[in-house]
C-alpha cells in the first residue's frame, strides 16, 4: 500500500492522491494550509471559535469538491476561495440570528478583561477591519494578510482586477479614517 505522505510531496501530488480518496494525503494538505485558512476566516469574521469551525467546514467542502479543482491555480488559492465563502456564510448566519447589540463587532466575552481588551491596539484594528464592507474586507485580507497579487485575488474572488484595486483603495481609505488616532501615535 502507500506510505505516509511526507513533506517532500507537492500540493499537486497530494491533491492527486486525495482525489482517489486518500484521506492521509488530504490530512497532509490540511496540516499545510490550516493556519492560513483559519487566519483568513478569522480575519473575515473576527471570532476565533467561529473561524475554527468555519475553517473545518471549508476543508470538508474542499474534500467534497476536490474533483472540480484543476491545478491551473495554486491549491492554496482555491482553498482561500472556499474559505472566503464559508466565512461569508458564517457572517450572514450570525447577522440573521443576532440582536443589534450582538453583531460580530462586539467581543463575544463581556467580562471585565473584555473591556480592557477593547481599548487595546489589536482590538481596535480588529474592529476597524470588521466594520469594512464584506467585499472590501475580503480583498484587504487576501492582500495584507495573505500577500496575494491583484491577479490572484481577482481569480480567488472571481472579480476583475480593476474591482480588486478599487475595493482595496476603498478599504484602505476607510481604515485610515477609522484608525487615524492610533496611526498618529505610531
Amino acid at each position, binding site marked *: *500500500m*502507500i506510505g505516509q505522505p511526507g513533506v517532500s510531496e507537492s500540493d499537486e501530488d497530494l491533491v492527486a492522491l486525495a*482525489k*482517489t*480518496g*486518500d*484521506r*492521509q494525503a*488530504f*490530512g497532509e494538505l*490540511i*496540516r499545510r494550509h*490550516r*493556519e492560513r485558512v*483559519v*487566519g483568513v476566516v*478569522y*480575519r473575515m469574521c*473576527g471570532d*476565533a*471559535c467561529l*473561524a*475554527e469551525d468555519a*475553517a*473545518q467546514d471549508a*476543508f*470538508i467542502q474542499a*474534500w*467534497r*469538491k*476536490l*474533483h472540480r479543482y484543476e491545478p491551473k491555480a495554486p491549491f492554496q488559492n482555491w482553498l482561500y476561495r472556499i474559505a472566503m465563502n464559508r466565512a461569508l456564510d458564517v457572517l450572514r448566519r450570525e447577522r440573521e440570528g443576532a440582536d443589534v447589540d450582538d453583531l460580530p463587532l462586539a467581543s463575544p466575552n463581556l467580562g471585565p478583561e473584555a473591556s480592557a481588551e477593547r481599548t487595546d*491596539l*489589536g*482590538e481596535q*484594528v*480588529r474592529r476597524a*477591519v470588521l466594520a469594512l464592507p464584506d467585499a472590501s474586507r475580503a480583498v*484587504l485580507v487576501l*492582500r*495584507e*494578510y495573505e500577500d496575494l*497579487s*491583484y491577479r490572484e485575488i481577482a481569480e480567488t474572488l472571481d472579480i476583475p482586477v480593476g474591482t480588486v*484595486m478599487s475595493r*482595496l*483603495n476603498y478599504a*484602505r481609505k476607510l*481604515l*485610515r479614517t477609522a*484608525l487615524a488616532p*492610533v*496611526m498618529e501615535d*505610531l
Partner: protein
Amino acid sequence: MSEQHITRWLEPYLDGELPGMRRRQVEAHLKTCAACRAELEDLRVLSALLQAHPQAPATLSAGRFVAQVQLRLPRQEKTTLERAVERGRWAVPVLLLGVWVVVLGIWGLSGVLLAAGEVGLFESLGLGWLIPTAGAGLWPTIDFSRGGGSVVAELRQAVDTLHWLVLIPLELLVTIGVLYWSWLVGWRYYQQHQSQTNQMGR
C-alpha cells in the same frame, strides 16, 4: 513640482504591482514630492499595523484540527464520469435486453408473416396487401418459391433461408450476450478497484 501627483499609483506601487516603467516614474516623483512621500508613508504604516494586528488566535493544535476534520470527511462527490457509470450499471444491461427482445420479436414476427404469406393465409383473409414484397420491407424477405431447379440452387436457397432465419438472430444474440457479460465483468472490476482505493484512504 512640475508633474502631477501620483496618488493613484501609490497603492499598486506599495503592493508591488507596478510594471518597471511606471515604477520608475513613481520613484522619480517621490524623490521630489513630500506630499506623495507622506501619503506613501501613511499607507506603509497602515499596512504594518494591519499585519501586526489582530494576531490570528492560537486555538486547536494542528494534530487535533486535522483529526477532527478527518473524522468528519464524508465520501467524496463523484465525478460526472463515475456518476454516469453508476447510472449505466442498470441502463446498459436493460438497454441490451430490450434490443435483444425487440430484435427477436421482429424476427419472429417477420418469420410468421412470411410463412403465412407462403401458405396463402393473407389472401384467404382478404389481407393480400400484407404480403411482404421482396426488397420493399424493412427486413430482407426470402423468396421461398424461388429455385426448383438444380440441387445446387436448392441448397443455396436452404442456406440462405437458414442464414436469415437462424444465423443472424443467433449472431445478434451472441453479440448482445457478450456485450452484457463484458459490462458485468467491467462493472465488477470497477467496484473492486473503488473499494480498494477507499480502503487505502483509511
